[in-house]
């Protein structure tokens, strides 16, 4: 049976902890192993940090909308949507290129893509960005 949770978070970093806790609880009830939960949690943290910082620009009146869907033994999907002004993932530089290694930013999407099986970006209906992150639960992450 699929398990789902939906959250609407104010644009504060401390709410990242709350969302990660909800994700962990939902995953544990779906018998997802701790190792997988850890890496999915890291990906969720990055998606939320991006939405709060770059999407909503820490505007306390803007919210981040989160949907977590777990189909035990099959797939987990995270959807994170901000109320910002949109984002073009094609503009991102590769943080592992030698000239970028010492940059202090620009690794969030790289984290997400490493820890999940698929990461897709869409413009949201409100003009912001919707990120959909998918993890196939029958396979294990290979770093």
């Amino acid at each position, binding site marked *: 049976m699929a398990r789902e949770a939906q959250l609407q978070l104010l644009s504060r970093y401390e709410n*990242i902890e709350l969302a990660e806790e909800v994700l962990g609880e939902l995953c544990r009830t779906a018998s997802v192993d701790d190792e997988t939960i850890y890496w999915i949690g890291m990906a969720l943290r990055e998606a939320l940090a991006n939405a709060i*910082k770059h999407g909503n620009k820490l505007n306390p009146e803007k919210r981040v909308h989160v949907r977590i869907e777990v189909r035990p033994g099959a797939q987990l999907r995270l959807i994170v949507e901000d109320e910002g002004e949109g984002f073009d993932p094609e503009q991102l530089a590769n*943080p592992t290129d030698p000239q970028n*290694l010492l940059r*202090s930013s620009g*690794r969030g999407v790289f*984290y997400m893509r490493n820890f999940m099986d698929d990461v897709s970006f869409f413009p949201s209906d409100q003009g912001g960005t919707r990120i959909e992150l998918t993890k196939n639960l029958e396979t294990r992450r290979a770093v």
Partner: protein
Amino acid sequence: MKSVVRDIGEVRVLDLEGKITIGTGDLQLRQLVEESLTAGKNKILINLKGVTHIDSSGIGEMVGCFATVARRGGKMKLENLPAKINDILQVTQLITVFDVYDAEGEALASY
């Protein structure tokens, strides 16, 4: 994030515990390193044994601190990487940037 500051000879050791993540741990790390430099300690060893999470902001701050210390004529090195933190440094290829040690004695002797 919790921290303990130890001075061993000329080396300042920062024992970190918990999460180096956006909004809290990343800023604390920067503050600890800035305080070290202000105190004249530019040989800095970050002990990551108790660190459970480091997000992209934490990694970015660590890289920023590494560069700041180098600009001030010092060296920042890492020790006791937990497996997951090591994994993150591997995928970001920052393992090639930092000097990393498993034993504190070896790390201290390297400065």
